[in-house]
């Protein structure tokens, strides 16, 4: 489901090596200019020649990262407040993680116990509920902190922000769509919020991938099953812009998820239900229109039992790279996505 103020939202897999953004734009018949956001690349924000080339000269980079730096240079009070808030968020995330790890440990221990099935089922539900409560509490606190910050510092009313915001609004007005690249998701989200992009994007078609796709969903979930310090838990970072609801976006699943670990995936899916955990490998794509999602290209939902339909691309060209058929709706969960409208063409299903 997408917010009614947008005509369409397209989530894509990673674009770095084999971009499919052009195909998606063509599919939706977007002909006008496209405002791009590469703030997730931080200092490398303007290193966007490949993207510009891919968009055939139609791209105008909103330079949100650089604009943010400029704002902080000009408005020291906001800079200091921002730094304080970042420190607060780090504390929040750290304490949340401590609670979360203990809850997940408890879930794991209980899961290993032998007991009658009905007791085990009940306890498993309770374990997941405990984890969900921790996630929800963290999200509430982040939202509360942000509202307090906004109420106190009123960023949009400050001259340094307002000046850039006006310029950004003019650029976006002149564009038909906005393309939001990946990168550092917290940094990206911060810039999107600083300039109120959610409001400025009304009426525009949105294309977003990787961190960009995460940032415009309703809840940003950080995840990596094989980090060097040992497998950590997926964790909620914050609320996203909420352009797309009822999904948790999982980019680069082929590298970041242990797709063979059903137990782990099962816990993740149940934690975030009723939102669907949508994995977005390279070349995948899901388009949401106001009427609902079209059939996905290569994206797949993790099912309630931890299974999925992903098959990595093979050398013979089969698999996702050639557009193999994959499903988005979880088959055995209470979180099915609406069926695609029959009038829309689909390559993969």
């Amino acid at each position, binding site marked *: 489901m997408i917010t009614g103020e947008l005509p369409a939202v397209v989530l894509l897999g990673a674009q770095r090596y084999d971009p499919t953004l052009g195909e998606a734009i063509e599919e939706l018949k977007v002909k006008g200019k496209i405002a791009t956001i590469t703030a997730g690349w931080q*200092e490398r924000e303007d290193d966007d020649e490949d993207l510009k080339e891919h968009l055939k000269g139609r791209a105008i980079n909103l330079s949100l990262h650089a604009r943010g730096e400029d704002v902080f240079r000009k408005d020291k009070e906001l800079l200091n407040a921002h730094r304080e808030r970042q*420190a607060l968020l780090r504390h929040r995330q750290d304490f949340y993680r401590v609670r979360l790890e203990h809850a997940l440990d408890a879930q794991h221990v209980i899961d290993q116990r032998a007991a009658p099935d009905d007791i085990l089922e009940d306890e498993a539900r309770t374990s997941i509920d405990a984890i969900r409560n921790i996630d929800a509490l963290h999200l509430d606190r982040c939202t509360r902190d942000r509202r307090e910050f906004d109420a106190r510092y009123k960023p949009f009313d400050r001259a340094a922000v307002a000046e850039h915001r006006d310029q950004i609004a003019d650029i976006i007005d002149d564009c038909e769509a906005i393309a939001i690249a990946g990168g*550092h998701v917290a940094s990206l989200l911060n810039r999107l919020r600083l300039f109120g992009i959610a409001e400025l994007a009304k009426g525009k078609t949105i294309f977003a991938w990787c961190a960009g796709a*995460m940032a415009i969903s309703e809840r940003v979930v*950080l995840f*990596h099953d094989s980090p060097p310090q040992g497998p950590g838990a997926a964790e909620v970072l914050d609320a996203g812009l909420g352009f797309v609801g009822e999904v948790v976006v999982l980019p680069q699943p082929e590298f970041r998820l242990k797709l063979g670990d059903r137990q782990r995936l099962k816990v993740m899916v149940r934690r975030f239900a009723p939102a669907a955990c949508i994995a977005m490998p390279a070349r995948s794509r899901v388009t949401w229109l106001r009427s609902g999602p079209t059939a996905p290209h290569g994206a797949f939902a993790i099912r309630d039992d931890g299974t999925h339909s992903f098959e990595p691309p093979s050398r013979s060209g089969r698999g996702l790279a050639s557009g193999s058929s994959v499903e988005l709706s979880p088959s055995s969960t209470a979180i099915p996505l609406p069926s695609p409208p029959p009038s829309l063409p689909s390559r993969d299903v």
Partner: protein
Amino acid sequence: MVNRHKQLAIQDLVKSAPDNGKVDKFLSAPGRTFPLVEGPHATFIWRGDADGVSLRHWIFGLESESSLARVPNTDLWYLTLDIPHGSRVEYKFELHRHGTSQWIEDPRNPNRARDPFGANSVLQGEGYEVPDWVAPDPDARPGRLEPFSFHSKTFDSMRHGAIYLPARFRKTRLYPLLVVHDGSDYVNFANMRTVLDNLIHRLEIPDMIVAFTDSPDRIREYANDERHARFLTQELLPDLTKRLPIIDRPQARCLMGASFGAVAAFSTAYRYPDVWGRLLLQSGSFAFTDIGTRNRRGPLFDRVVEFVNQVREAPAAVSERIFMSCGVYESLIYENRSLVPLLDATGMQVKFVEARDGHNWENWRDRLREGMSWLFPGPLLMVYE
């Protein structure tokens, strides 16, 4: 994996009533490297004239001297040991000739580990691989290593070291600080500069500032010396914080060290609780006694024992996160294992990692990735491109 019923190559040779010609063939068999690792069995080989040949290794729990046997009618010497999966063993040969002995590196083994005392040969057991992140990566932008000198009032002498600044260092950003004991050795023998470049490049640790420090008298100053703790916390830290853009929070400050360096790090944090929020302690020389104060390791450890006994008596949460590692082939494994539950019970987050390795710099090098990324997780979890 070797078929358990299949004979080892050296046994085949011995049974074949070999002469030196057969030995030549044995040694030059295509693809054969030495020591000969066949599953969990490692055969050490030396060839030449000697009255006797011994293996000198640093595996605590095995006899430190093991004699090689001579293959009859040849000048080939050998010894087969069971070496568990994933082991890494440093060793030398000791040659006995005409009443004298000489320690040498294994001439048939190109794998060497250097340390402040020279170099050792390295047996890489089945399943051990040198991590790919310890070698220079052409894609990883190198950070800068700048020498620094500092006059310590506490010691009334100059202290020297080097500051590592990450490749994308900017004065307008704030960074965590890692202070390393035996800094020169970490750079020279544990490739730590390269490791930092690589882990930062891979987003596994954040950009950080690292102070590599050295002591002119580490045996004394690192062994629970109040002056050292004062020097680090009241002199070096304020000076670095004044000169460099360092995050002014305990969570962003880490002390690390190996062996006595780990004692120095931990005892400093113990003296200044809540200043150093992260500790990375490798093969800490955490000797203690359960009764009395005499310890089996000698007087150099007296002050260490005093400190560790104090910690055991009154464990306290002095930091937030402690990463500890130790080799299972070290005599210190007992002390390190003993400390973990005590520290854990204080509420500090403690991660303890064991490795099939000894008390040496490459063991400490191989644990850097896990330790640093656990203490300072990089932006890997945040970056989705």
